[in-house]
Every structure is written in structure tokens, then in C-alpha cells.
């Protein structure tokens, strides 16, 4: 429809509010309380414009643009004198109590309040009285609190409580003394608290880990990155200065994480700066272990030409690195570095998504689901951002029903919240133990995996009687199935979510069968399976055998050299098996970024790049391939991407070294040829030689300071900028200044918009895709000729055994990351390892709450753990905190013994 703004005519999309319309048209209009993901509440009054009844109306009426819907032919003015004066006045009001301490404020230079102040033109302050002051709170190790800077936009509480479901941050007191914080000092409880630092338009809530090594936004070198800490693959911006990773910021991707990250993702970056980093190549058989690059290449070359070589890949290494290893050792000698149990599950997931029977769902689509069924996965703790998406689905479903009822636009958050009140859309969580996400569930049920699977199959058979013929479902189970089935049937866009973390294929099959049974007619059902690592999917798609097969092969054939890629085998495999493997190897060559149990076994150790000092591609659990880019320039150390090491070794081996530089592009092209399932992977991002008007895309903002001084202690002349040549991004501040292609946006910044809010300048419309489409490539195409896949594999009910306990993992959103645990702040928030069992189980063991128990599995004695009684854990099951060092390599999903 058409509207007139300051006497010019524009086309806008119906249903939007005036503020969204103006921002989408690239017109500048200041705002505070409106947030694209959270809608309007009309509190700050900053976005005022004039609207006119018709062309004869000269007086007009002041309205809040975020509160008015566009209507055909609407006339509004941004430039009107009264409107401008009012907007300027709002800033002056806010400033009456704002300390204006920009020079010492962490927000400075990336501050929405600064930007809006300049935008309104307010410069002279008539207020000359004392400002109010507050006491700040200790909010834990992640978020800093500086309440004096607050402008009372209410975004923080709206985000924390309404959007993310937290309940320990609130607004207190009233009038010009409202306070945003906790009831008393203490750690913020939500695993999504980090987003406060981006949601808050001022320096009240800021990233405390950044404070440890603070750098202004304008001084950061930044690159597009992808989160390493779970299989969701949120898009991030990695930011560097002086060779150190300073912080991670959200990188908007309309299909994936939108505006937010979880705390594991945002704060888990410190491993890159860790003391534990491997920076030097080592040959451990020598007295002088440190080796130069040429020494090490020669040494490795001789080792791998001497005997049979096996390559152990990694679910946390990039596709490029896994593929380079596969090339080096040969396809037949390449193994996934995970247990057979997990590999089996991952294969199953690939088979399901490849079948095309159901749509592989993105986070954005989950947010829009009108019913969600979760079977067997504690997504709150294993894929936090997916849980946040499910929360939006649940809240939005109720809201959209309410808004249709009385025609309120969905962005009118205040009204929608009142309308929806406590109502929630349908969510069933069928999991092995309670999870915070149960709070918003319509149905929750906790049982052993096989029983969860049985319920899943019962739902599938209820939805499509005849497809599953099983007569031994109990009445109670059928009743549950009917309730859930009926709710799912009512939905138009239901989503079924499952995951590999209960190590049970029946669970995944049952979830899949429900999705297939539901996917009929008008109803479009989507499916998602959470996996364990950031590239579990990519590795699984390569289709190689598991570590267990490698182990068997080596045991039977003997004499092999193992090349282990970025993988702590002990994390995935019981230590006895891993020891056995290493003992049967002639030589062990390890590439990794951090020291761990596996690198200790290495005779040769190569320093591998992390996501921050290398390029690569990861495939998330949805099947979306996404590229990350190096941000730490590497001029001196030996650290390089594993794929580069491996490729160099390969060229050495094949004597094909011809002076060509190696680019990920080349590797991906070879990969596409060798493994057609990765078709299109070369197009995930622009190629390394891509330029715009002959210019590369600068990783440094145009205000980057001190570059002539940074190395002045070594040499007064400015060194040539580092250039890795791998991507269209340069390590300088010169280059193309416009909007880069969406996949290579290194930071959000636009004239007049220095803060993260500048993202609106990169979107096609507010909340829409990034200009040119959201980055990433879905590798599972929705096939029209979908293969009919249906499992119908109903397991027997779970039976409690007398002295055997089913060992299952209990993940923790902040604590369970292998790499994120190197962030000191996250480490302190990680739970102490413990086991939980039902009181019935404890009685059977003759133990009580608080006793120390020891898990014994296939002869391995694990360290003893305190046990907690938990009524929601079913009899015969023991849950153990997973992902912590103490529970590495446990045989999840198997029956173990427990000793007191």
C-alpha cells in the first residue's frame, strides 16, 4: 500500500507499524522501547511523528510511530517541527538522569542512546540539578550492572521475562526511581542472560567477560563466525584485538538465531585465548620437542608413508578439515571419531532428513510453529537457542489466536500480552527428566527412553491407525497418545523435535514416525533432531564408519599410524577402548587447538586453528552449511587450520606442490566432486577472490584506531596488513564500505547507527532476511519424490533390572560444553557432577540422598559422585551430569553397575 511521508509517496507492506515502515524505507527515526523481536509498548515516546487526517490537515496529531498501523494513503511527517522538538525533548528528559559517562562506559561507541541523541539533534541540556543514583548489583560473572545509566526503556525486563521466560530480573519501585535488577545481588539464572548486553540500549547491562580485556567496537577486528558450542549453529561475530579474541556478538540470521545467542555461545569463546592452547608443533620422541613447520612436515610425511594410516575425524572440526583428512588417508581409512552408538544414531538422522519425508526445520520456522512435540531431548540444555525458539512458538501461538480474535496487530506487544495472559500454545515435552522448558509445556511426561519411544509410536498409530499395528499399548499410554495426537491434529504447522542425547534409536524413530504420520494434507509437519556437536551433521553426512570400527580394524590388522583430527577421543569413547586403540597404533599424530587426554597420547602434535584463527564450514543439525571466517591474524605462530596442515601433507605426499595457494574454495570444490551429498557447498559464501568494485570487505571498521602504533615498539613503519587470501574479507580498514553480501557481514554498522541496532540497515525489512537472503545453505533439499520412510519399530517397555541401571546423560546449558568450559566465568556456573535417581532406585541400592556412588561400566570405575533423589527420574535409571570432564567417555544408554 501507499503512504505519504513528508509529502513523498512510498510503498509499504500492510500490517506493519509506522516505525517499522520508516526503518524499512531506510528513513531514520529514533526509538528505544520498540525492539524488532519484541514489538511495541509505547513506553519511551521517542518515536513520535505527526500524522495528518488528509492533505488539508495542516495541524496534524503527534503519535508514537511504533503504536500505529500503516493504512492506505496515510500521511505522516518525520520532519515536522513539533515532532522533531518533541523527540529532542524526550532525549533531554532521559538525559536528566543519565550520567553521560561515555568515556568510561563500555557501551560507548556502540551505544544506541548516543546514536539516538545525535539523531534528534539534542545538544544543550537545560537540566541543572543532581541526578539520581542507584546501587549496582552483582549479577554473576557474565553480566555487568551499572544502573545509573538506565533510561527506563523496559527492554531488559521485557526480554528477560517475557521473551526468554526468566523470573529473577524485574522492575522495582516507581516514578523516576524505577530500578531494573534482581531482588537481591546474585547470579542471573537464565542461560540467555547475555542478550541483555545487546538488548539494553545503554551501558547498564554489558558483557562482563569483555570487561576483562575491554576494547571499543571501533577498535575491534571482526569477522562473521558460527557458534561452536552445539549443533544449532547460531551465527556470531568474533571480535579481536592484539591477537586476542575479545568477545562474541550476535550476528543476525533471520532463519537461525535472529537477534539472540545463548550464554554458552556468547561467552564460551575464551578457550581461544586459553593457556591450554597448543601453539607449537611438537615431535615428542625428540629431546627438543619443538619442531619447525618443515621439520614436522617431513617427520609426519615419513610416518604416514611407513605404515597404513587411519584418519579419525571429528564432529567439532570443519567440513574442510574432515575432508582434507579423508583425502590424505583415503576414503576407506577415514572414520568418524565418535562411538558406534552415536554414529548409528547420526546415520539414522541423515537417512531421515535425506528421505525428504518431512521438512527439516529451521529455528525461525520453529518460532512460527503452532504446536510442538519434543521427544527424548532436553533441548533447554543441549540446544538452548532451540528452546528459546520453542518458547516463542508457544507464546506466539496464543498471541496470534488472541490477536485474530479482536484484530490487534501482532507487534502490539503490550496488548498482545494482556490478551494472551497465561495462555500458551501446545507444547508436549516427553523427556527422561525435568527441564526448565517444562514450565511452558501443556503436557510433560518423564520416562525411560524406550517408554518415550512407545508413547511416540502410540501417537503415530493414533494419528494414522493401521500404519503401526501394536496391540500391547496400555490404556494409560493410549490415553496420553490420544490427548497429544488430538492437539497435534489441530495444528497447521506442527514441529516434532527429538535428539540423539538419550542414545536410543527408538526414540528418534518414534519422533520421526509421528512427524510422518502427521504430515498429511494441509498440514505441513517439520522435524528436527538435535545432535551433539557443531558439525555432527556434517561429519555424519560424510557417511564414514565410526571410531569403534577403526578400533576393530586396527586390532585385527595391526600396524597403523593414526591421524587424529581435533578430537578428544576420550570424550566419546570409554577410556579402556581409547587406551586399547592408542596402544595398538604405531604412531599417533594429533591436530588440535587445546591440550586434552588425546593430545597426551600424541607422538606428533600439530597446532590447529580454532574457529577464530581459521576458516571453515559447519553443518548444523538442520542440514544448513554455514561458513565461519578467521578473525585473529596470524603472522608468527604455527597455528593454522587443520585442513591446511593436512592439505600441505597431502601435496607433500603426492608431490603435487606447485606453489598454488590453498583456499577453502578449492577444497570444497574437490569435496563436491568426491561427495555429491555436499552439492552446492562451494556456494555457501562468496569465493576468496570476490570483490565489489575491486574492493575486499574490511574486517576493521572505518574508525579503527592505532594501527600505525600497534607494532611501533617493533618497527616504526607500519607493517603490511596480514592477508590470508582465503576469503573476500581483508584484515584492514580499507575496502568496500557498503553492505556486503549477507554471508560475509563482519559487523553491523551504518552511518548514524553505531550500535547493534544498525542491523535494521542490513535487513530487507524489519525482522526479515538479511539483504540478499539469509546466509547458509540447506543441504537437504525438500524432495517432491520423497522416499517413503517409516520405522514402525516399537520397543518393549523398559524393565527395571535388579542391579543394572540404565545410564543416561543430564546436560547443562552452561556447563556441558567441551570448549566453553575454558571460559572461567562459565566454569564457575557449571554444576558440580552428580547423579540422580528415583527414591525407589535409591532404596533398591540401599542408598540415600547425598551418598557417594560409583559407576562401574565394563570394568571401568568412574570417580564417585554424590547422588540426588529426584522423583522425576524413573526407576531403574541413573542420570549423570554430562559434558563435564568427570563424565567423559561414559557409555550413555547402556546398563551399568553402581557401587556405594
Amino acid at each position, binding site marked *: 500500500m501507499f503512504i505519504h511521508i513528508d509529502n513523498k509517496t512510498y510503498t509499504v507492506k500492510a500490517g506493519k507499524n509506522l516505525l517499522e515502515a520508516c526503518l524499512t524505507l531506510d528513513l531514520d527515526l529514533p526509538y528505544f522501547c520498540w525492539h524488532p523481536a519484541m514489538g511495541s509498548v*509505547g*513506553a519511551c515516546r521517542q518515536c513520535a511523528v505527526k500524522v495528518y487526517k488528509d492533505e488539508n490537515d495542516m495541524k496534524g496529531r503527534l503519535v508514537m510511530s511504533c503504536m500505529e498501523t500503516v493504512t492506505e494513503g496515510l500521511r505522516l511527517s518525520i520532519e515536522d517541527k513539533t515532532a522533531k522538538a518533541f523527540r529532542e525533548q524526550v532525549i533531554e528528559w532521559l538525559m536528566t538522569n543519565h550520567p553521560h559517562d561515555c568515556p568510561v562506559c563500555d557501551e560507548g561507541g556502540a551505544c544506541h542512546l548516543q546514536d539516538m541523541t545525535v539523531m534528534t539533534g539534542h545538544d544543550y541540556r537545560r537540566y541543572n540539578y543532581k541526578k539520581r543514583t542507584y546501587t549496582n548489583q552483582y549479577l554473576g560473572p557474565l553480566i555487568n550492572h551499572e544502573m545509573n545509566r538506565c533510561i527506563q526503556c523496559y527492554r531488559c525486563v521485557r526480554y528477560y521475562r517475557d521473551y526468554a521466560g526468566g523470573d529473577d530480573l524485574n522492575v522495582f519501585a516507581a*516514578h523516576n526511581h524505577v530500578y531494573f535488577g534482581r531482588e537481591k545481588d546474585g547470579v542471573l539464572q537464565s542461560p540467555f542472560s547475555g542478550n541483555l548486553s545487546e538488548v539494553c540500549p545503554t551501558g547498564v547491562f554489558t558483557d562482563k567477560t569483555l570487561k576483562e580485556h575491554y576494547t571499543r567496537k571501533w577498535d575491534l577486528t571482526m569477522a562473521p563466525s558460527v557458534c561452536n558450542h552445539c549443533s544449532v549453529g547460531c551465527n556470531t561475530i568474533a571480535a579481536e584485538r592484539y591477537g586476542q579474541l575479545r568477545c562474541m556478538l550476535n550476528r543476525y540470521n533471520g532463519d537461525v538465531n535472529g537477534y539472540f545467542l545463548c550464554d554458552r555461545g556468547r561467552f564460551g569463546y575464551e578457550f581461544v585465548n586459553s593457556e591450554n592452547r597448543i601453539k607449537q608443533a611438537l615431535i615428542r620422541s625428540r629431546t627438543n620437542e619443538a619442531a619447525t613447520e618443515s621439520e614436522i612436515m617431513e617427520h609426519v610425511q615419513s610416518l604416514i608413508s611407513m605404515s597404513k594410516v587411519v584418519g579419525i575425524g571429528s564432529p567439532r572440526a570443519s567440513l574442510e578439515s574432515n575432508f582434507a583428512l579423508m583425502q590424505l588417508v583415503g576414503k576407506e581409512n577415514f572414520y568418524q571419531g565418535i562411538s558406534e552408538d552415536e554414529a548409528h544414531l547420526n546415520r539414522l538422522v541423515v537417512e531421515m532428513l535425506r528421505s525428504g519425508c518431512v521438512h527439516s526445520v529451521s529455528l525461525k520456522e520453529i518460532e512460527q510453529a503452532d504446536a510442538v512435540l519434543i521427544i527424548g531431548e532436553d533441548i533447554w540444555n543441549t540446544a538452548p537457542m532451540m528452546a528459546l525458539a520453542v518458547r516463542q512458538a508457544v507464546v506466539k501461538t496464543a498471541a496470534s489466536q488472541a490477536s485474530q480474535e*479482536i484484530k490487534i496487530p501482532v507487534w502490539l506487544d503490550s496488548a498482545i500480552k*494482556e490478551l494472551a495472559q497465561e495462555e500458551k500454545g501446545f507444547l508436549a515435552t516427553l523427556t527422561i527428566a525435568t527441564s526448565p522448558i517444562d514450565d511452558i509445556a501443556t503436557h510433560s511426561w518423564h520416562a525411560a527412553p524406550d517408554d518415550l519411544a512407545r508413547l511416540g509410536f502410540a501417537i503415530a498409530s493414533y494419528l494414522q491407525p493401521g500404519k503401526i499395528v501394536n496391540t500391547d499399548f496400555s490404556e494409560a499410554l493410549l490415553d496420553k497418545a490420544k490427548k497429544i495426537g488430538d492437539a497435534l491434529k489441530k495444528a497447521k504447522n506442527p514441529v516434532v523435535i527429538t535428539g540423539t542425547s538419550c542414545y536410543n534409536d527408538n526414540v528418534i524413530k518414534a519422533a520421526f514416525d509421528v512427524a510422518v504420520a502427521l504430515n498429511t494434507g494441509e498440514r505441513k509437519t517439520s522435524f528436527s533432531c538435535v545432535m551433539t556437536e557443531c558439525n555432527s551433521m556434517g561429519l555424519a553426512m560424510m557417511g564414514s564408519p565410526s571410531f569403534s570400527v577403526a578400533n576393530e580394524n586396527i586390532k585385527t590388522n595391526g600396524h597403523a599410524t593414526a591421524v587424529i583430527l581435533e578430537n578428544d577421543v576420550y570424550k566419546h569413547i570409554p577410556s579402556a577402548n581409547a587406551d586399547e586403540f592408542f596402544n595398538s597404533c604405531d604412531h599417533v599424530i594429533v591436530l588440535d587447538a587445546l591440550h586434552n587426554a588425546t593430545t597426551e597420547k600424541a607422538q606428533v602434535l600439530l597446532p590447529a586453528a580454532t574457529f577464530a584463527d581459521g576458516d571453515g564450514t559447519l553443518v548444523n543439525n538442520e542440514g544448513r552449511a554455514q561458513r565461519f571466517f578467521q578473525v585473529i591474524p596470524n603472522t608468527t605462530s604455527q597455528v593454522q587450520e587443520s585442513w591446511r596442515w593436512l592439505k600441505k601433507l597431502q601435496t607433500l605426499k603426492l608431490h603435487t606442490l606447485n606453489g598454488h595457494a590453498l583456499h577453502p574454495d578449492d577444497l570444497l570444490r574437490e569435496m563436491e566432486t568426491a561427495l555429491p551429498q555436499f552439492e552446492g557447498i562451494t556456494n555457501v559464501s562468496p569465493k576468496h577472490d570476490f570483490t565489489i568494485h575491486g574492493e575486499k570487505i574490511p574486517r576493521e571498521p572505518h574508525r579503527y584506531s592505532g594501527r600505525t602504533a600497534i607494532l611501533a615498539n617493533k618497527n616504526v613503519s607500519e607493517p603490511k596488513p596480514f592477508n590470508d587470501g582465503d576469503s573476500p574479507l581483508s584484515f584492514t580498514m580499507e575496502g568496500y564500505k557498503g553492505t556486503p553480501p549477507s554471508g560475509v557481514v563482519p559487523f553491523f554498522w551504518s552511518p548514524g547507527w553505531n550500535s547493534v541496532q544498525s542491523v535494521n540497515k542490513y535487513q530487507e525489512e524489519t525482522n526479515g532476511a538479511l539483504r540478499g537472503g539469509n546466509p547458509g545453505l540447506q543441504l537437504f533439499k525438500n524432495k517432491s519424490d520423497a522416499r517413503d520412510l517409516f520405522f514402525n519399530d516399537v520397543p518393549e517397555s523398559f524393565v527395571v533390572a535388579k542391579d543394572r541401571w540404565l545410564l543416561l546423560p543430564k546436560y547443562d546449558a552452561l556447563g556441558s560444553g567441551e570448549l566453553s568450559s575454558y571460559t572461567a566465568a562459565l566454569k564457575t556456573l557449571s554444576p558440580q557432577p552428580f547423579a540422580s535417581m528415583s527414591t525407589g532406585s535409591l532404596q533398591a541400592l540401599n542408598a540415600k540422598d547425598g551418598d557417594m556412588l560409583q559407576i562401574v561400566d565394563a570394568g571401568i570405575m568412574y570417580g564417585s559422585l554424590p547422588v540426588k533423589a529426584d522423583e522425576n527420574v524413573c526407576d531403574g535409571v541413573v542420570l549423570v551430569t554430562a559434558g563435564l570432564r568427570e563424565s567423559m567417555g561414559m557409555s550413555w544408554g547402556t546398563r551399568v553397575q553402581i557401587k556405594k
Partner: protein
Amino acid sequence: MGVKLLLDKAHVEGIRYYDVYRREGGYRSVEKALKMSPADIVEEVKKSGLRGRGGAGFPAGMKWSFIAKPEGVPRHLVCNADESEPGTFKDRYLMEFLPHLLIEGLIVASFALGSNATYIYIRGEYAWIPDILEQAINEAKANGWLGKNIQGSGFDCEIYVQRGAGAYICGEETALIESLEGKRGNPRIKPPFPAVKGVWDRPTVVNNVETLAAVVPVINMGGEAYSKIGVGKSTGTKLISACGNINKPGVYEIDMTISVEEFVYSDEYCGGIPNGKRLKACIPGGSSVPILPANLLFKTAKGEQRMMNYESLSDGGFATGSMMGSGGFIVLDEDQCVVKHTLTLARFYRHESCGQCSPCREGTGWMEKILKNIETGKGKMTDIDLLWDIQRKIEGNTICPLGDAAAWPVAAAIRHFRDEFEWHVNNPELCLTQNFGLAHYADAREVVA
């Protein structure tokens, strides 16, 4: 002696208790109403011309007819007994001395609106009144006027008393609803209006205590007859709580045909200004309505006599008039300082702002600080213009009318008493010990005489 419809029995011994109240003709309106259809009751109230007594004066019958009636969704009547406006204490009087009158009105209104659960949201500082109300509710219930199947009509109704925690803003109807729901008392943004989505998402009517009590005479005498009392759109009688420099502060029922002058000076009402002082100014409708200097109080700008009714009090707009508001009549004699008085109000509004929207939250605090400076001899001439500028930008630009309520007193004070503000600025020492006095604001009475 004017007509009395509400307080006519106020002085009957024991009228607070059911037996006396019933004996004096109480609950007749319920008997009558239960025989009517709810729509007919609404029609009667419409006909009566009864306007909301909470401040805005919105026609009660019209408001009732707006209530949405979606299938299967309960509706609620909420009685606004938050009465926190400085100078207004008429609802307190009603509830304290005539609790059954309110309960009676509530039952009729509940029946008309279809509310089976009706709430009285009462100001926290009225600590002793909930007991009185609850006692009355219990008596009414014991006598079959509340509870299940009231008087065999098949209509069920319960009345619950909910105490507020002492926030003025919780008198604003949507903030009241939030508070009633157990949330922070922040006003909601409309739409949706309470009539569509109110308490717990259900259609809700919020009315003032006095409005609901007035339903009793409306039903008893019929809408038509009620509308004949008073003048123009100011029908029926109105309670005025008078205070300040008068001989007889208290709550008076007037029939809106008397003049302001009569109200101030007649012995039946305020009884004149004590100690032979002269009248300086008056806030006729509760602290948020514009203050009027003596010369504009008794006569409108057109030179007509100003009457105690909605139309006449607002005659001349804000330039020369004021508002009926909630009927809090505050009188200032020649010894009062308008600057100090404005500061007191500014402090009140700053303190009572919910803190949601910027103009009110920040503007009120700033105005208070400036007024404090002027009052204590630290003001500058430019401060007066600054005050004017701030209040003007607050007015009309906030989420709820508290912003306006904070802006109007400041605006009116400057509009009519600018010379007094300037005198403060010019006499920084003197203003600490002396008052500006009456100056040229002649006591209109002397002019009349």
C-alpha cells in the same frame, strides 16, 4: 436546601448496619431491578444522564452498553475505590457511613452487566474501611442480597474487597486492573479497552464508588426523573469534598444548580473563609484540574455566574475555566503561596508516576526540582518558561492521563499566577519569609458586592 439522593439518610443513627438501612428503604432498587431485564436497567441509567463521578465524567449508561458479551466468557464489574487524588475524599465518606448504599448499587450494576464476581478495589490507606465493607457484604449476603440465586431471581453474585498498596496510579482503571490481577500497577495501553478485555482478559466495567451508589436513586426514581434533577448534562446530584481555607470542610451533596459563590459562602456548605481572610484561588475538582484565581472562580470570562456543574466549571476551557473532575474542592486564602502549593502537587505527581513513559517519569521530577528552586528563592526567570515548556510537552503525550494531571496544575499556576512566580525570582530573600498575597486577584465577592 438542595435535593439529596445519596446522603439523605447519612445521619440516621445506625445506617451503617443492615437492619437500619433496610428499614430506611434500602435494597428497594435491587428488588425493582431484579424484576427488570438487564438491558432495561442499562436503558434507565442511560436515560438518567448519570455521568461517571471518578473524574472524566463519561456517561455511565453508555459505558455499560459498550461491554462485550462473548459467549461463555465471564464479565466483571469493578468498583474503583482507590480515591487518592489530593482533595478528594467523597468516596471514603460514602463507604464509611453508607456502605450498604454502595453494595446496593453494586448488586444492581452487577445484575445489569452480568457480573457474578464483582470487585471493590480500595485504596490501601483506607485501612479501616474494608472491614466496614466486608461487614456490610456479609450482612447483605446473610439477607439473601448476595450469593447464589439472589432473592430467587436465579442471579448469583459475590462481591470481593481488594486492598491496594497505596499507589495513586492504581486508580487509573487499567492500572487498577493490572494491580487487581496481582501485577505491577502500570496503566495499559488502549485498545483493547476494559469493556472488551479487562480483568483476566474478560469484559470489564470500572466505575467510581459514587457513580455506583448513584445507580440506586436512578433505579428507585427512574432514569427520566433523575435526569430532571440538575441542569443540562449535569444531571442528578454530586458529592463535593471541600477542604482548605474554609470554615466548614466536609463532604456535601449538591444538585448542580447552585453557584460556586453560594457553595463557598453559604452556611449550608463551606461557610466562607475563616479569620476574615479573602479568597485567593480555588481548585474546584481535585488536585489535577486547573487552579482558578478568585476573579475567574465566581464569574466566567463571559461575565456569567459560574455554577457548580460540569459545563459551567469548564466554561472557557483551560484559558479561563477548570473542571468538575472528581469533586475535590480546595480553597486557598490570601495567605497561601501558589508556588509552594504547585510544588506540593508537583511532588505528589512525581512520586505517583508509575515510571512507564518518559515524559511523565522524567518530566514530573524535573518540574518538581525547578519549582523547589523557585519556591526557595533559587529560581531564574528562564525557569518559568522552562516549566511551561516541559508541562506543554508532557500534556497529551503520555500513556495515561496522569501525565496530563501533572501538567495541568503547573500550567494553570503559571497561566494565572505568573507574576507570583516572577516575584519569587525577583525577591529571593523576601520570598522565604513573606507571601506574595492576593495582589490583583480581587476576591470576586467584593466585586460582586
